[in-house]
């Protein structure tokens, strides 16, 4: 992911290339405890959700009229929901779609934002102006509102919700990348590469892009934590994962109707969303401090 080509003029461009060096030198000093807890939690929860078919005590879709809205018990560690389904199993399976969604959203953001920012930074002039004006315009829509509009038009599902988030996030990545590309465009090692006859596409993709990726990489963590929350919010509003499929946001919405009977169904998914989002951003902060 990080530099494949070290710039010859490294002393003059103390840019991302320093990331790999810093990573090596920091390895001796251990990460702060906050970042350690966050990363451990993330690994545990992602693995648990991926292994949901093995770990889940019950089928997340199997309903039971006799076992509705039960409190925690040995059989149902987190109780059951209003359809008698095991909450723990639904939380595990719901996490699968949540992290799958974050993955799709980030992939879409990269596919959209990187060519956008790279082109704007390298082309300059009118193309740059037009692309950045477009980015500013997309960014002037409140993120959730634009995502709702797009899912409303395309029809609600996990994939459309995540594509909508990519459209909202793409310009953020584009702006960041453009800012990182601009000083590299005129750097000496690029001049050297060009004078050696390296092609334009190769300069852009192999020499400029890897050296401009560090701020984008850091930003992707914040975007991932935001994507997790927006995905849950869209599902909560009925515009994401559709019931009866398990999802943190939609399950929370369903459980809320029975808040007075058992508040656990409302508290647990929200708590997991909050801690996961927080863990992603704490990890991102740590990556930022390492790359500096």
């Amino acid at each position: 992911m990080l530099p494949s080509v070290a710039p010859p003029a490294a002393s003059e461009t103390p840019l991302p290339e320093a990331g790999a060096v810093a990573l090596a030198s920091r390895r001796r000093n251990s990460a702060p405890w906050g970042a350690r807890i966050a990363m451990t939690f993330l690994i545990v929860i992602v693995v648990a959700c991926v292994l949901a078919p093995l770990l889940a005590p019950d089928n997340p879709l199997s309903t039971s009229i006799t076992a509705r809205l039960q409190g925690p018990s040995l059989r149902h560690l987190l109780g059951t929901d209003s359809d008698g389904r095991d909450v723990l199993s639904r939380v595990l399976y719901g996490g699968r779609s949540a992290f799958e969604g974050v993955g799709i959203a980030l992939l879409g953001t990269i596919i959209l934002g990187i060519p956008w920012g790279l082109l704007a930074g390298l082309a300059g002039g009118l193309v740059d102006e037009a692309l950045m004006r477009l980015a500013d315009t997309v960014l002037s829509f409140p993120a959730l509102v634009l995502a709702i509009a797009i899912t409303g038009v395309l029809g609600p599902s996990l994939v459309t919700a995540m594509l909508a988030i990519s459209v909202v996030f793409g310009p953020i990545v584009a702006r960041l990348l453009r800012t990182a590309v601009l000083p590299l465009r005129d750097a000496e090692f690029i001049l050297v590469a060009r004078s050696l006859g390296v092609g334009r596409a190769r300069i852009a993709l192999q020499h400029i892009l890897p050296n401009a990726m560090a701020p984008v990489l850091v930003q992707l963590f914040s975007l991932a934590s935001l994507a997790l929350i927006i995905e849950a919010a869209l599902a909560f509003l009925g515009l994401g994962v559709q019931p009866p499929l398990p999802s943190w946001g939609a399950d929370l919405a369903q459980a809320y109707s029975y808040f007075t009977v058992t508040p656990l169904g409302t508290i647990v998914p929200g708590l997991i969303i909050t801690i996961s989002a927080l863990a992603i951003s704490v990890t991102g902060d740590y990556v930022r401090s390492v790359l500096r």
Partner: protein
Amino acid sequence: MKRMLRRRIVALVPTLLLSSILVFALRSLIPGGPADALVGSNASGQAIAAINRRLGLDHPIVVQYFNWLGGLFQGRFGTSYVTGTSVGSIISERVGASLELVVGALVIALIGGGIVGIAAAVNRHRFTGRAVLSLSALGLSVPDFWVATIAAGLFGLTLGLVPAVGFSPISAGLGPNLHSVILPVLVLSIPTGALVTRLVHSGMVQALDSPYIRTAWAMGIQARRVYLRCALRNAVSGIITFLPLALAGLVGASVVVETVFDIPGLGSEIVVAAQSRDYATLQTIVLLMALLVILLNCAADVAVAAMDPRIRRSL
């Protein structure tokens, strides 16, 4: 100053046009077109053609865009695809509740966040200052729909202190109105308040470590005056710059909060419109929200420039 104002307003035109084009283009994403979404894909060709004629969808796309844009300028926002009522009347009915929520939350966030931020900056070397800062980070990342449901469930459903759902307009009396909005407004103000706290804190801390504050201390100026008159001022331009962003966040969060508390505002309407595929309503409200953010962004730039001569010259 005048030149800068003129340039800023001229730059507004392409942004406004572009945002209207983006919102209009949403329509072309609809699988099968709006008519198809309205009557279902197994409707006869005749029925679809009739709907297209009624909605003006039989014209070329560019003509459609200018018809739509021209209509917006004349206050014709079209009619709802689902209920058939005019979108203009839907908006004017619902804008009041949304405005009350957003403005109320903004005021509470600015006052509350300001006070907490100042306290955190003054106590920046103590445990309390750091604890407040960590808490504000939590306030920024906690999902609003979760806070809203927990608050409504706890204070509304379980304790019964305030209504968990519903809204009584000001016309029905100020008391019941405040009673029905206090909880949603507080929930809405949490992320913005956390943001204001952080901005006030960072602006003030930056100032407190700078030479001019040291001079102020050395001159024997009272602590209260140093903090509030000298250091706080340094944080104000940061807050004004972030105000449009905060407002965009508030508008986005109002969608969720209005839905949870069942408040008849623009935010809850947008969700209903998206669920029922009511594109005319959806389009207009989305555009309205974007316009609000764009105009406020511009106003904030101008306000910061008016306050700070360095920025004025650089624009």
